[in-house]
């Protein structure tokens, strides 16, 4: 087998997740020796023909042109990994799924007819089979390196499906909810960031989306968290908004936001 060929693709996104690869300052050169960059527009003008062994896909599907492009990328890729909240859950731009597109367009564009935009922002898995989803807004550098090195070693990547609470315990961070009554989505949010927010004295805002395995097993008990959020001063509408940020369309968070508004009514 020759050097594996890597491709990095962008859909609707901020570029932050693919930038994470370039932020691997200490590992980048070693990595470049083990993997050939076949397509990575942000980093290189050189493009090698398909097929690609490992495709990293950033961003959500948001235009009609995207629909065709993601199918082609799937055909050209042996192993396809989505990176980040946009690619795995539609991203912050999926907030438009809860609203009316013409109304949104009228706010931003005087001439919406020039704009190619689907009325929903959807994850990659809604359109093509995906081999692995890496969570986060943005993804975590260590998890990205784990995925790539696991691919190179032909083993399963070690990506935990437990909640942020585990990472707080590992890090030795005092629980911000227990100690300070700070509202925190940590108990229902997928680990992976290293529990940064509680370490900085704020509650987790759920940017890694709902905890649970790749296939949705072991999902969070968001209903159990609701009374705790309420105790800490989060009104129902605020709880719904908490869930409706970067992973609003992840099913468990969409359902949690609905629960919060339902209890409100």
């Amino acid at each position, binding site marked *: 087998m020759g050097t594996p060929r890597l491709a990095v693709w962008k859909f609707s996104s901020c570029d932050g997740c693919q930038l994470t690869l370039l932020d691997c300052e200490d590992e980048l050169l070693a990595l470049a020796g083990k993997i050939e960059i076949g397509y990575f527009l942000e980093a*290189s003008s050189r493009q090698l023909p398909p097929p690609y062994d490992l495709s990293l896909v950033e961003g959500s599907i948001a235009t009609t042109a995207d629909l065709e492009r993601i199918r082609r990328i799937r055909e050209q890729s042996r192993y396809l990994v989505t990176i980040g909240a946009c690619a795995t859950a539609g991203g912050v731009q999926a907030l438009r799924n809860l609203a009316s597109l013409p109304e949104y367009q009228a706010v931003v564009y005087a001439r919406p007819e020039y704009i190619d935009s689907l009325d929903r922002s959807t994850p990659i898995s809604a359109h093509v089979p995906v081999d692995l989803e890496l969570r986060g807004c943005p993804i975590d550098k260590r998890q990205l390196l784990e995925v790539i090195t696991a691919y190179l070693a032909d083993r399963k990547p070690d990506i935990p499906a437990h909640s942020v609470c585990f990472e707080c315990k590992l890090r030795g961070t005092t629980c911000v909810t227990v100690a300070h009554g700070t509202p925190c989505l940590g108990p229902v949010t997928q680990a992976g960031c290293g529990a940064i927010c509680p370490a*900085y004295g704020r509650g987790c805002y759920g940017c890694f989306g709902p905890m649970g395995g790749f296939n949705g097993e072991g999902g969070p008990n968001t209903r159990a968290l609701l009374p705790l959020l309420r105790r800490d001063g989060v009104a129902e509408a605020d709880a719904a908004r908490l869930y409706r940020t970067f992973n609003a369309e992840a099913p468990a968070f969409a359902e949690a936001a609905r629960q919060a508004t339902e209890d409100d009514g």
Partner: protein
Amino acid sequence: MTHRTGRLLTVGALARVEGEGALHVSVRGDRVEAVRLEIYEPPRYFEALLRGRTYAEPPDLTSRICGICPVAYQMSACRAIEDACGIVVDGQLAQLRRLLYCGEWIESHTLHVYLLHAPDFLHLPDALALARTDAALLQRGLRLKKAGNEIVEVLGGRAIHPVNVRLGGFHRLPTRAELDHLATVLRQARTDAEDTLGWVAGFEFPPLTVQHELLALTEPDGYAIDSGTPTGALAGPFPLRDFEHRVREHQVPHSTALHATLDGQAHLTGPLARWNLGSERLPAEIRALAAQAGLGPRCVNPFRSIVVRAAEVLWAVTEAQRIIEQYEPPPAPAVPVPPHAGTGYGATEAPRGLLYHRYDLDEAGFVRRAVIVPPTAQNQTAIEADLLAFVEPRLHLDDAELTRQCERVIRNYDPCISCAAHFLTLTVDRS
């Protein structure tokens, strides 16, 4: 090749820029008929989705407009919302914000200099190709970039979409040990930044002179980064609340980003604008090193923007060192910012140029309306004008070479195309 009457140069997808864009240049005989920088980055409707969120949320939400300059979004959003609430964050908290912003300048500019832009001057497809000829050189760039990222990580929690920024300041203050670590990192960064400036100064710069109006924030006694007065080279200084009257936007059919002008003129924001309007207020030591690198008080060749970026990295490193040396912990990580009905304005200097935010808040602090004008959208008209001026004297080049050189002109701007696709129009050009 030149005997043909019509030529169409097309770059379907621009490489080594942030976001997605394409370029079309149509030529008839020895005249360039049209230049179009086409931004097909899908719109993400930020100004729409911000409505109805509470006033504490835009710093986190708008950082997601751009993974390369999230701090710029957080800082402009904080300033605008604090302005609406009648709060000014000053003293050591303001210094810490400036330190965070210096970190973003260092990492974002260094990313552009080494990984996106330098390969053009070295005739390489990417920086990894540079590693094969001079690994130590690329390692120097990565080390300098990492120094910037470490500042953002310490102050912000993580390098991309920092979590520690809030209205009024921060969630948690850095510890002395963390700042001491940064001081150590910055000593090496200082050497790396000086070497970088010397390195890029030796590149060969194709001749090109910009004629655009310039727009940057200026401050009376320093180089503007996190605050200042919008100032045009011709337009002069004007109050930030007049920004939307002076900088007018209009939509064009070929782009999801809007085009903007300052007082009706194509204008340029970013390193060249900052340099021409503010370099005299840099410390003498930085000006002297810049002069050794061939940078006088004025720089009007967009290809030299890489030298300005390197000089700005050097300044940001020394500014970060100064802030850390003079730091004394403030009494609290943040000052309270109670909600207040009203309109607030905020502008800061993103690495790519002036980034403007406006928010209208109701009495409970909910966002009724948001306006965001990012630098690349403002620069679009200028980029197209540069391409026009650049291409005509070079029509003798074959299509592949001319296309390659046009891409270089665009990369001079370090365009942040994801940012450019999210801003609001208030006026419609129906002409």
